[in-house]
């Protein structure tokens, strides 16, 4: 405040000084006659000010918003580019383990699926020399603490002591038992196993059940190859003894056989590649959000302005609003999806039918606030057409709030898709969308180790929402002419 007054004082002083300088001069010395210039006469108040250019310039000054805009653009571009990238999975394809056709469910490991166990250095393996580089390994020679899922999937921990031709000697609760391997060939180990009773004679058939875990030896994706029943491990990872058995040199992991391409984000509980699903879902959701937002904004603004400005129509539009607003969207959704098959267009149609209402009401409230201000009154008195008043007098005043509202329309449409999915009327899992990915992930939120299924899809939604929010706010700020003076 003090500074302000000082500045004022200085300016007054300057004026006095200036006045003093010219005090002694006559009028002829002070003024000269201007030539008549017909062009200058045509000129009206000129300035090179352009509203939109200035808005844009002001917007560019907001670094964060610019950054988010770039992120958003890249994200949108990537959703289109992603399917064209090499080695992408089909979002609908249920991934199966090539060794036993079982689904690869809820796998998190980036390049393969679940790690079943770690094998300490020195673990014995049956190996077969194939050439100088590789050894074929039948992973059925382990002396390790093993986990076997029996029928009924109870976990039993036992130690494999010795593998015979047919019988496996194991230790369980300090007693020695024998179980029968039902498949000794290849990478599959299946245990005949239910009640751990030692057979009287080794030829007795024990209870036969199967484990679900397919175990294969795995070192690093690039250090392993497969041919038929054999896995080949690079020689440098193994010491091969004379009796044909091999010993691992370092810590080795036993995993499901790695797939050709890594599942970047793992698979979901149905065994589909989450990475592909998320991008396909983002594409769908952005499309839904975009179309619905366009309808919302277009219809909303037009109806809102007319509703707010044209008094004669106020009541009738209010009543139309009341009618449409009060017919539950759920009924429309149920009926539309009953009449048409549930699909993206059904969802867009049902959402577009009602979503513009909020926008229209919002604009109308804004218009009502400013329509009777004096400058509008003046404009009306001068006989400006209503349409011109609406577009030139009212709309520019609202650009900032409309911008914010528009920026939020897309993320809002997406989150209402989440809600629609929640109440069971959304897209089916056959059409991935952020809505069904999030609801599916939310279902697993209490399941330990499965939270990642929610994480990634929520993250994408969050990035979309945050960027729209920040861009919208920055644009709204920039759209205010008062902020154009930089």
């Amino acid at each position, binding site marked *: 405040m003090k500074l302000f007054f000082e500045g004022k004082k200085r300016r007054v002083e300057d004026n006095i000084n200036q006045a003093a300088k010219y005090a002694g001069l006559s009028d002829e010395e002070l003024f000269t006659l201007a030539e008549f210039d017909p062009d200058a006469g045509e000129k009206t108040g000129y300035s090179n000010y352009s509203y939109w250019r200035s808005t844009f310039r002001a917007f560019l000054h907001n670094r964060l918003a610019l950054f988010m805009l770039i992120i958003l653009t890249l994200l949108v571009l990537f959703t289109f580019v992603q399917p064209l990238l090499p080695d992408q999975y089909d979002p609908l394809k249920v991934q199966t383990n090539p060794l036993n056709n079982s689904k690869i469910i809820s796998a998190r490991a980036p390049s393969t699926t679940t790690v079943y166990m770690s094998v300490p250095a020195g673990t014995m393996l049956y190996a077969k020399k194939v050439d100088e580089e590789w050894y074929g390994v039948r992973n059925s020679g382990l002396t390790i603490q093993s986990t076997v899922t029996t029928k009924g999937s109870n976990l039993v921990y036992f130690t494999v002591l010795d593998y015979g031709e047919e019988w496996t000697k194991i230790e369980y609760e300090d007693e020695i038992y024998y179980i029968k391997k039902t498949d000794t060939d290849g990478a599959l180990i299946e245990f005949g196993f239910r009640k751990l009773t030692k057979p009287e004679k080794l030829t007795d058939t024990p209870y036969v059940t199967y484990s679900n875990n397919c175990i294969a030896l795995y070192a690093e994706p690039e250090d392993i190859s497969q041919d038929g029943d054999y896995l080949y491990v690079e020689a440098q990872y193994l010491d091969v003894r004379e009796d044909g058995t091999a010993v691992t040199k370092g810590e080795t992991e036993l995993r499901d056989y790695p797939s050709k391409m890594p599942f970047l984000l793992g698979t979901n509980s149905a065994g589909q590649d989450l990475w592909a699903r998320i991008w396909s879902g983002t594409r769908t959701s952005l499309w839904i959000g975009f179309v619905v937002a366009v309808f919302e904004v277009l219809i909303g603004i037009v109806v809102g302005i007319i509703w707010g400005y044209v008094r004669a129509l106020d009541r009738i539009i209010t009543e139309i609003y009341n009618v449409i607003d009060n017919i539950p969207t759920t009924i429309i959704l149920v009926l539309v999806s009953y009449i048409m098959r*549930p699909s993206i267009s059904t969802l867009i149609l049902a959402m577009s039918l009602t979503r513009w209402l909020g926008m229209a009401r919002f604009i109308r409230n804004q218009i009502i606030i400013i329509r009777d201000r004096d400058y509008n009154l003046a404009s009306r008195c001068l006989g400006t057409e209503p349409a011109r008043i609406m577009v030139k007098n009212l709309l520019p005043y609202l650009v900032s709030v409309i911008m914010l509202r528009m920026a939020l329309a897309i993320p809002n449409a997406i989150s209402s898709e989440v809600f629609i999915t929640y109440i069971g*009327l959304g897209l089916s899992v*056959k059409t991935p969308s952020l809505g069904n990915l999030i609801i599916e992930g939310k279902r697993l939120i209490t399941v*330990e180790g499965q939270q990642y299924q929610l994480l990634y899809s929520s993250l994408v939604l969050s990035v979309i929402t945050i960027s729209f929010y920040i861009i919208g706010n920055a644009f709204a700020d920039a759209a205010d002419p008062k902020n154009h003076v930089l």
Partner: protein
Amino acid sequence: MKKLLALALCLMLMLSCMALGSAEQAQTVYRTLYSGEVSTLNYLTTSTTNEFTISANVVDTLIEHDRFGQLVPCLATDWELSEDGCTWTFHLRKDATWVNSKGEFYANVTAEDFVTSAKYVLDAANASSTAWILTDYILGAEAYNEGETTDFETVGVKALDEYTVAYTTFEPCPYFLSMLDYVCYMPLNAAFLAEVGDQFGVASSPDNILYCGAYILSELKPQEKRVYTKNQAYWDKEHVYIDAIEQTYNLEASTLSPEMYLRGEIDAADISTEVAAAWLKDPDKAARIHPVRQYGQYSYFWTFDFDANFDEEYEPANWLIAVNNENFRQSFKFALDRVRAKSAIEPNNPEDLLWDTIMPEGICVNEGLDYTDTGALSGMEIVMDTEKALEYKAKAVEELTAAGATFPIKVLVPYNPSSNNWANECLIVEQQLEEALGSDYIDLIVEPGPSSGFLGAVRRSGNYAFLKCNWGLDFDDPVNLTEPFKETNNYNFMINATDPALMGEDGTLEYYKLLNAAKAMPGNDVNARYEAFAEAEAYLINHAIVIPYGSDNGGYTASLLNTFEGQFGATGLASCRYKGMHLLDKPMSTSDYFEAYLDWLDERDALIDAE
């Protein structure tokens, strides 16, 4: 200050009273969450499992299933069948009483109550959804239901004296007894009905029904909570071991109940496959869950549609050519990897849920021989055999090309999007079949149907090509599972079939001849009857009209109950009742479950041997 002190003292006194009170009773309470509220307590009109689970525990039936699935006396102590095999006479126990929600005596359960109930079910104004069970079997019931007569004397339900009731069927019905353990045969007190009028069974207050079963609904707050308390006046109360059952409503029960179960806030929870997979990795949590017991209430199967009432874009004419070729259907049957498809629902042990026959095992047993091992069905096995499938494919391609079909054949496979795993199941089937048979041969098109009114829009209107269907068993007889395939069925519209391989010499479908022959079999020769039905069923499977699939209800569950102590039966109310079960000290683990299961099997075998 004094006031505060007094207040504090009062509070302490109250607390100690409460503590004392609870210490004295030491009740066994079984707490669960539920997400589906019942819309009525009226056991005579409902047919939804959720709703008759309540009735099953609070109202008794004439007879019930025991632990091994045998029919044993309940409200009736004994019964006899007339010479002509049509009239069943039941003698009621005299110590069964009706009580109200406070456990106060209302009346005795008498024969008249069964007549009242039948009258109520058959009254068209009540629009009972179980009326068909009476109208299809009981003498004169259909005419009464349709208003052709108003004289209930014409209906075959009679109270012979105060404690004797007789049911007359219009033809001998050897499996009639197995129908009685169901809601529409529960008694109803006429005086009470007159008293409450149209408020009977309204799910707003527990006072709207009377109780004669093991439990009383002592509290019923819709969308909030319901409490069952042991009925102290129950004739068989020494076999009711859990004192109270508390059920709290929660729409998110599927997400929250495992967590609440771990925190000890509830005593049972449904465990989804994902939760099961996670818990199995932790020995401590793994010990708290066990497999779901299989009762076999619903049979699932894949059918081919002979109606092809779908959009031109899916080429119905082409499909009709294909489906009427047996080799084409056989190629599906042999190529379909049912294990892989089933793993969409139960990834841990899909094989456990697969059946090789349409009728589940263990339901219809005659002299120790299961129906599914009888005659033509014995040794029936559905095995995936890609080589055979390709052979059939080669033949089919040749014949279909001659018949003018275009390849790939479009196969419309709809699913209900509101059913959790159905979409994925169809996707797996699509991938697997196209992989096995080649996408130049078939093109499966997986499409969602509407989530409300799905069956009407899809199955009943023939708007599909290849569909997973189901049938819920109503009573223990093979004839029940021929309903979906009868001439007027709305499952596969087989009546439209033109496949010469399915036709008899006279140009009518062979299956109907077999079916009618089986239906015409005398009821007293159970063995011959079963063989005749087995032949009909085997015909459907062997000619690849239907591909048996199995049960949909697998996976794991967490509970403090031992289900093997409870009643057993695929039909009726056996699987709903808490009677006979104890509250365990610790959760049942998988090994406990299998131990109990093996014991149960042993006991049952011993029982059969003793007979």
